[in-house]
């Protein structure tokens, strides 16, 4: 990748972070957060995006970000109250900004009309209409306002001012971002005749001097015909990192020279060159000789001596230290995880050998091995934690979705999220987005009632969708709950009957009816709506959750709402398995698929002709599949009473019983690919390596069930796969 493309890529990565920050801030404000730092953070986010976009000449993005930023600046300076209405507009603007960023990234098109509409809305937010006093990139109609009366916080000048007074006080951030006050002053010097006065009254004694802090302020008088815009433009890149005041000279004269009294003899005016030399010497504070002794500050100047105390008013408290992070290639992390997996297996093998060699438990060797075991476990956990990320990244996409779906359905919805900090493997997170999106859409579209119905039921008009995540016994549990009407069981059942999914006379429990919505081909929306009816139903959600080794359940209470609960493994690199033996082979069945295990009794197993058998489990008959035969390990069927049956629930909720010889136990196993060096084997999902160093195969339960259900054998399926 060429360097520019790499930088551009970094910019977009950072944009994602800024956008997340922006949305978080706005949401926090919507929830009543009035901390000025929140507003500042929001402003900074948009400002950074604008800045970066400018560097890459992303015109459309810059234009919109500018309008957005202007509105936020109004809010930051307290001229625009953060009412709910305003925040809703800002949130939608954030969505548009995100669209622009994405469009700039992948070259897709942006909805121009929508952008323009929101830009207008943002401008309309401005309490002063077409506000003066903001920088005006590309806004022609703001071009020549130097003769207009100043409107904002400056008294109107009676006539066109002949000069400006610029008070400029950098904050530490300005220097931290590698800006340089001297350069800015020099730039001002280009605009006309300048007189620069230094205010060093904030300087502490040398012993208290923090080399990273900013102590100096300048007052520059610019005479000539420069307009305010051009003066402000000089400071454009340090906006927010300094206190800047630009006022017409006449107004200042009227006010009296009360504000900043220079340290130098007031009458003395330095020529710019000499001053710059001095500024530079002071801006790099170390050399003590050149720092003027801390002069007693004139009473009029309220300069805080302690730089860490937040400046008054719209002051920006120091940003909290960002946690030190690095970006690492995912491949490297995966390699590390692989290697640690080896280490764990190797350590287990070593332990086994040592035990076999007859060392006593209390011997030095055995104790050393115990320590090694603990260490390897710890390393494994730590390495897994590298891949773990908070679910925040996927939860963050949901507010926008909720806003959109709420707007489409006309239902006011509030999304409540909890446990965003819950961590889970990155791959799991990535594959969670789609099912979650679908479930939240469903919750709003199908779950929540219309405002009228809610009113009739005595509920607040605003529906609530809760999205929560938590760790529970080594898994992550994610819930999507709505406070809607709950599942309409009558209707679900009649639809299922109508679609032939259940027999008309089937006696179903409430739970069974609720679970019908996971059946393939089931969709309760009477007409296919734009929101939920995209050709995918809950069965797709269920399948994608199952593909992640997870389970999804639903609980619903009429009139109170429904809750979908997903339980997922924390990582895809390991799997909770039931280790079983079949005809001398050790196999692993994924525990997520197993409902229960049972010892078949002779009377429960019935033959249906050929090798087909069924087993009675509490009055229902499910197919009994001999795993040994299905995989070709043995020619004849195993006597069912000699084995153990695993009742499993496969894709689409179909049940079957897998007959194995014996259960060895439960174990967490590391998943290894068979395809890497061989190829896919029908009936086998993957392989793993057991503690004794041998390879064990992980069963692909869905294939085994599907193949045993059909007349064709695995071999036929294989041939199909080979030719197809």
């Amino acid at each position, binding site marked *: 990748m060429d360097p520019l493309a790499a930088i551009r890529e970094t910019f977009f990565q950072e944009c994602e972070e800024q956008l997340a920050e922006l949305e978080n801030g706005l949401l926090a404000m919507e929830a009543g957060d009035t901390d000025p730092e929140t507003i500042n953070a929001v402003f900074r986010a948009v400002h950074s995006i604008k800045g970066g976009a400018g560097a890459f000449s992303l015109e459309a993005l810059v234009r919109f970000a500018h309008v957005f930023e202007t509105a936020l600046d109004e809010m930051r300076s307290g001229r625009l109250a953060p009412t709910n209405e305003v925040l809703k507009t800002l949130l939608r603007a954030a969505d548009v900004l995100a669209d622009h960023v994405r469009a700039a990234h992948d070259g897709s098109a942006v909805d121009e009309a929508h952008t323009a509409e929101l830009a207008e809305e943002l401008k309309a937010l401005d309490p002063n209409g077409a506000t003066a006093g903001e920088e005006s990139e590309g806004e022609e109609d703001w071009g020549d306002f130097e003769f207009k009366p100043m409107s904002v916080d400056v008294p109107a000048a009676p006539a066109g001012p002949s000069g400006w007074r610029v008070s400029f006080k950098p904050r530490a951030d300005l220097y931290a971002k590698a800006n340089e006050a001297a350069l800015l002053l020099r730039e001002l010097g280009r605009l006309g005749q300048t007189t620069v006065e230094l205010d060093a009254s904030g300087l502490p004694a040398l012993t208290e001097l923090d080399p990273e802090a900013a102590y100096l302020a300048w007052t520059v008088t610019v005479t000539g015909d420069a307009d305010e815009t051009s003066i402000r433009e000089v400071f454009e890149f340090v906006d927010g990192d300094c206190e800047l005041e630009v006022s017409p000279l006449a107004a200042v004269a009227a006010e009296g020279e009360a504000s900043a009294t220079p340290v130098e003899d007031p009458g003395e005016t330095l020529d710019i060159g000499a001053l710059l030399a001095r500024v530079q010497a002071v801006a790099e504070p170390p050399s003590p000789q050149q720092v003027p002794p801390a002069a007693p500050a004139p009473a009029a100047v309220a300069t805080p001596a302690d730089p860490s105390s937040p400046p008054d008013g719209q002051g920006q408290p120091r940003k909290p230290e960002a946690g030190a992070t690095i970006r690492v290639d995912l491949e490297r992390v995966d390699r590390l995880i692989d290697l640690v997996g*080896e280490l764990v297996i190797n350590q287990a093998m070593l332990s086994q050998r040592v035990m076999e060699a007859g060392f006593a438990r209390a011997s030095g060797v055995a104790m050393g091995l115990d320590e090694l075991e603990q260490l390897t476990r710890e390393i494994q956990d730590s390495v897994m934690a590298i891949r773990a990320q908070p679910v925040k990244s996927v939860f963050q996409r949901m507010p926008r979705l909720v806003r959109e779906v709420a707007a489409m359905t006309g239902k006011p919805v509030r999304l409540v999220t909890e446990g965003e900090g819950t961590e889970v493997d990155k791959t799991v997170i990535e594959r969670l987005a789609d099912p979650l999106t679908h479930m939240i859409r469903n919750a709003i579209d199908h779950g929540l009632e219309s405002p009228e119905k809610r009113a009739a039921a005595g509920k607040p008009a605003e529906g609530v969708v809760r999205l929560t995540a938590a760790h529970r016994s080594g898994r992550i549990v994610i819930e999507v709950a709505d406070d809607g009407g709950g599942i309409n069981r009558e209707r679900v059942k009649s639809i299922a009957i109508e679609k032939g999914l259940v027999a008309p006379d089937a006696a179903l429990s409430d739970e069974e009816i609720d679970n019908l919505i996971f059946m393939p081909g089931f969709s309760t929306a009477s007409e296919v709506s734009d929101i939920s009816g995209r050709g995918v139903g809950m069965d797709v959600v269920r399948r994608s959750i199952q593909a992640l080794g997870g389970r999804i359940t639903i609980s619903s209470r009429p009139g109170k709402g429904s809750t979908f609960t997903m339980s997922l493994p924390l990582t895809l690199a390991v799997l909770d398995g039931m280790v079983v033996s079949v005809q001398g082979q050790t196999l692993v069945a994924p525990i997520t698929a197993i409902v229960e295990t049972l010892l078949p009794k002779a009377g429960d197993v019935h033959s249906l002709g050929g090798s087909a058998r069924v087993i009675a489990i509490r009055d229902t008959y499910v197919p009994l599949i001999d795993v040994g035969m299905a995989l070709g390990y043995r020619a004849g069927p195993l006597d069912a009473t000699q084995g153990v049956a695993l009742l499993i629930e496969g894709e689409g909720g179909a049940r079957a019983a897998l007959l194995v010889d014996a259960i060895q136990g439960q174990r967490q196993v590391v998943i*290894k690919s068979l395809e*890497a060096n061989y190829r896919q084997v029908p009936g086998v999902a993957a392989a793993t390596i057991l503690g004794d160093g041998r390879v064990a195969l992980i069963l692909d339960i869905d294939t085994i069930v599907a193949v045993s259900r059909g007349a064709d054998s695995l071999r036929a399926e294989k041939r199909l796969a080979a030719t197809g």
Partner: protein
Amino acid sequence: MTQTNANLNAAGGLRELISFRIGAQEFCVDIMAVREIRGWTAATALPQSPPFVRGVINLRGAVLPIVDLAARLGFESSETSDRHVIIVAQIGEQVVGLLVDAVSDILTVTDDVIQPTPDVASDTAKLFVRGLLAIDGRMISLIGLERVLPDFELEAA
């Protein structure tokens, strides 16, 4: 080592081959394809696999398929013992273990020593044998490994 080989190859067409024994026959493969040689460990059988695939073993965390080269080449496959060895070979992107009776030698030969395979009817010969070498009165067949793993389409056809 690799560097030297390359130089030799460029200079005089020298190749290094690893020769091994299956039953009474001797075979060899190009040394560049061989990653390592290890003792036999019991393999985990793979369902629905051709008879010459003995199963998979754990090679330092990777799942390695084991091809019984005797069976693959159409000979009687022998009972495996601790004496057997696995030649770990790189075939394209994949790493495969080849079960043989014993590794005998490393041969350094020039290309002109390798005689073309005589025209015989055997399909396996056409599939695998790339040439013949006569060393000290013994015949050694040079094996090409590209077709060692089962080929789906070939089987289905």
